[in-house]
């Protein structure tokens, strides 16, 4: 239970499995940010994960920023902004 909002804590996203130590978690977070940006770059979007703000911040080239909770919501927000889902296969065609 989150003591700020009173909602049951979400069980976490599956991508967060696989890290054991705090160091692994930090490395995973940095790597996650790098890969998200690799995927977003062709669409003129950027993301930053970590720092003082919880969640992931998604920004456009003009600096407009949206904060999303987690990875699945990030892809939903990207789809909303682009009008189609971000497709890692189409990018290599």
């Amino acid at each position: 239970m989150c003591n700020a909002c009173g909602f049951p804590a979400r069980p976490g996203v599956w991508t967060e499995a696989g890290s054991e130590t705090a160091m692994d978690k930090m490395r995973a977070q940095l790597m996650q940010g790098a890969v998200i940006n690799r995927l977003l770059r062709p669409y003129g979007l950027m993301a930053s994960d970590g720092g003082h703000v919880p969640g992931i911040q998604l920004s456009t080239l003009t600096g407009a920023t949206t904060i999303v909770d987690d990875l699945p919501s990030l892809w939903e927000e990207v789809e909303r902004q682009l009008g189609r889902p971000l497709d890692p296969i189409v990018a290599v065609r």
Partner: protein
Amino acid sequence: MRLTILGGYLGAGKTTWLRHQLFSGALSDAVVLVNEAARTPVDDALLKSVSCVLSGGCACCDGRADMIAALRDLADQKSQGRALAHVVLETSGLADPGAIIAAVQDDPVLVHHVRFDPIRVVVDALHGLAQLRDEPLARRQVASADILTLTKCDSASPVELARLVATLRSLNPDADLGFSELGRDVAPPDLPDARPEVLPHLAEEGPPPVPMRLTVPPGTDWSALSVWLSALLHARGDDLVRVKGVVRTPAGRLLLQTVRRIVQRPEILPEDSAAQDNVLIFIGRGFTHDELERSFARFVLGED
């Protein structure tokens, strides 16, 4: 609590298999939920230890609310101290196991209580091939299975059986295959060589999903792989029927399994289990093996 989903097409032999497993004591600690698409339950007359029959709607669509309520009730009883470690859900013959997993994982209470066992799908050795030929649902059931059990093996000729086995292998190369007669597991029979049946194209389905193998180089970062895969599933979840494999991570060997957009919580496997490390099987359509490998190389490995 562990949840075993037992699926299979109408009349494939789900109840017979379950009945024998209960009789032989293999599932003696399990609570059994039976879902029937029809409103008049029949199967509970055959199974003595059924805790609840969910009739009048398939658990993956019309009867979803009933199924969730029944599972929540069991989770509640367990929290109050009832010894309850294992639930077996016999789905209706019209249910898509993937949709049931999605429903359970979407439920904010159950997601904290339920751990999934491998999905078992039974396939009728006599009619299985005809069902696969005509029914998109039968193909979806086979593609979502972790364990495929062929039933009525004594009634089919070795040639028919071999052809069915080859066809199942082409649809789902990664599932464990077992054979049974009247619910009893039997040793794999000697089968002649056979080619898989070329399944006709069904209008509802688009082109049939194709299995593809992706080798993950040792040392590949799990977070990089999982972020890429999550974007891929978001964009192409309807076409990517199944992804399965074992990936080595700092925390150990992770078993990764997805059914369409739903990813089961990755599980850490013991070091001595047989699965091969760093090979992922993708069963999907709408993209080629080469495109998959190029996308992986570019976004996960960072090659240009």
